[in-house]
């Protein structure tokens, strides 16, 4: 039996060796909580994405003033959240049909119970749309890679609340987390085109968005074709308005490949070609 000091020394050496070995492994481990300064990341881990989706849905529920399907009603009401659609305060007939998830009451309990929760489909008034923002901000904090959160929040901030600086700041925050996102670049371009009236800056951003979209498409990542259509159509409009008809025609040619109405796009192209030929600015 070795003496206690020898045994203690041996144990200390084993501890030290293990610590050295484990420290380097732990530093490289993806689940290393010490690497993250964010409390939410440490506390929630990957479940943050789940909560982020929940809070995005909560923003949609607030957009409808609490009239929102629960998980039990969901199968009857699929589709994109209305908060992510650029609608005005009034809801359309299609939305009304889609949103009637309650249907007729099946018994007296259900009929009576409808006195105590919102049962009418409404959208927030433009001045009140800020009420959805806390949930969108929380959703973005929980999942910084959820691009739609940034674009939706920025849309409502700049169009309904007139908070252009905050919209741009939030989009740039999203861009830092998602540098490849053509959606965020496109929305940022809209801030410059529609709110700051700075066409040169907007053009640069949309061209960058288009390059990102092309790069993603070339990599086979199947980026959203609707976003592509929106980028080229806005870029074509901008080029046409600033008298750069040749560039506008190029954009419209690309738009024609994804547009559901290529004949109408062709008409615009022909019109621009005539202007180009006539030297009109």
């Amino acid at each position: 039996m070795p003496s206690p000091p020898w045994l203690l020394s041996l144990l200390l050496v084993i501890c030290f060796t293990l610590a050295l070995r484990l420290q380097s492994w732990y530093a490289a481990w993806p689940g290393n909580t010490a690497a993250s300064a964010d409390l939410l990341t440490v506390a929630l881990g990957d479940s943050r994405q789940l909560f982020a989706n929940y809070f995005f849905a909560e923003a949609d529920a607030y957009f409808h003033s609490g009239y929102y399907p629960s998980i039990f009603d969901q199968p009857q009401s699929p589709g994109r959240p209305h908060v992510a659609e650029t609608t005005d305060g009034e809801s359309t007939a299609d939305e009304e049909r889609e949103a009637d998830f309650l249907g007729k009451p099946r018994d007296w309990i259900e009929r009576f119970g409808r006195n105590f929760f919102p049962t009418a489909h409404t959208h927030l008034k433009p001045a009140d749309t800020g009420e959805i923002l806390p949930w969108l901000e929380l959703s973005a904090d929980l999942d910084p890679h959820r691009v739609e959160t940034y674009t939706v929040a920025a849309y409502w901030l700049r169009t309904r609340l007139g908070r252009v600086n905050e919209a741009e700041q939030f989009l740039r925050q999203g861009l830092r987390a998602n540098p490849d996102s053509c959606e965020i670049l496109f929305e940022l371009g809209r801030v410059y085109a529609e709110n700051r009236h700075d066409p040169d800056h907007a053009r640069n951003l949309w061209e960058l968005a288009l390059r990102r979209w092309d790069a993603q498409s070339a990599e086979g990542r199947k980026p959203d074709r609707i976003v592509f259509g929106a980028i080229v159509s806005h870029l074509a409009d901008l080029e046409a308005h600033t008298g750069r008809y040749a560039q506008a025609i190029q954009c419209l040619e690309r738009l024609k490949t994804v547009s559901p109405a290529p004949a109408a796009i062709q008409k615009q192209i022909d019109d621009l070609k005539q202007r180009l030929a006539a030297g009109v600015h």
Partner: protein
Amino acid sequence: MNSLWAIASLVIKELYRRKDFYVLFILTVLITGLFGSISIFNDERIVRYLKAICLLLIWMAALVIAIVTTARQIPAEREQRTIFPLLAKPVTRAHVVGGKFLGCWLAAGIALVVFYVFFALLSGTREHTWPIANYAQALWLHWLMLAMVIALTLAGSVLFTAPSSNATICFIVTVGILLVGRHLNTVTLQLREPASSLVSVVYYLIPHLEFFDVRDLVIHDWPPIPWSACALATLYALAYTACFLLAAWWRFRRQPLN
């Protein structure tokens, strides 16, 4: 009536002697204040999220106060053997059950008033509107819901041996009803027999506590509920409360005390 009131006043005194209410109220104020201090895109008008958080905390605190206070009433009397001198007086077991219920319900009501005054001040200072009718309805319906929960817990306290198990079961039942009670009839459509019939029976049998949860209407500034619906909800709550109290008394009167 005097003996009922005497027992009830003891329960109310217990509420303000104990620290549960103060702790929960201070926590509610602190957490709401913390969320209120967050700047959301520099917009001071945003208030609904704050109302939602404050009301959620009020609901949680009220449930804790009501269930925990009620669950320990009769077991504590038996454990400390104070039930014997109490019943030696001209007090029947029905008086004990009734008095304990009344005391817990009034104590919960006092706590609710304090919570709702804080809520009204918070939303009023932010929104600059004072929808008193909505708040009064929300407070009244909330208090009625607590009447059912308190009566249920009182019935549980003569059924289960330990207050902790009674409180836990009552919490689970209450939260379960609040979360899924309204949807049980939808669930039955997706089930096969006999599960479908069983869930249907549960759906018609349980007290629908979710009727009394009007937080969404208050948060999103919907108009007040029709007063006739409020009156019917009151009758509904009183009927269930009476059922639970009757069950509690029926069980308690046949129970040996030692």
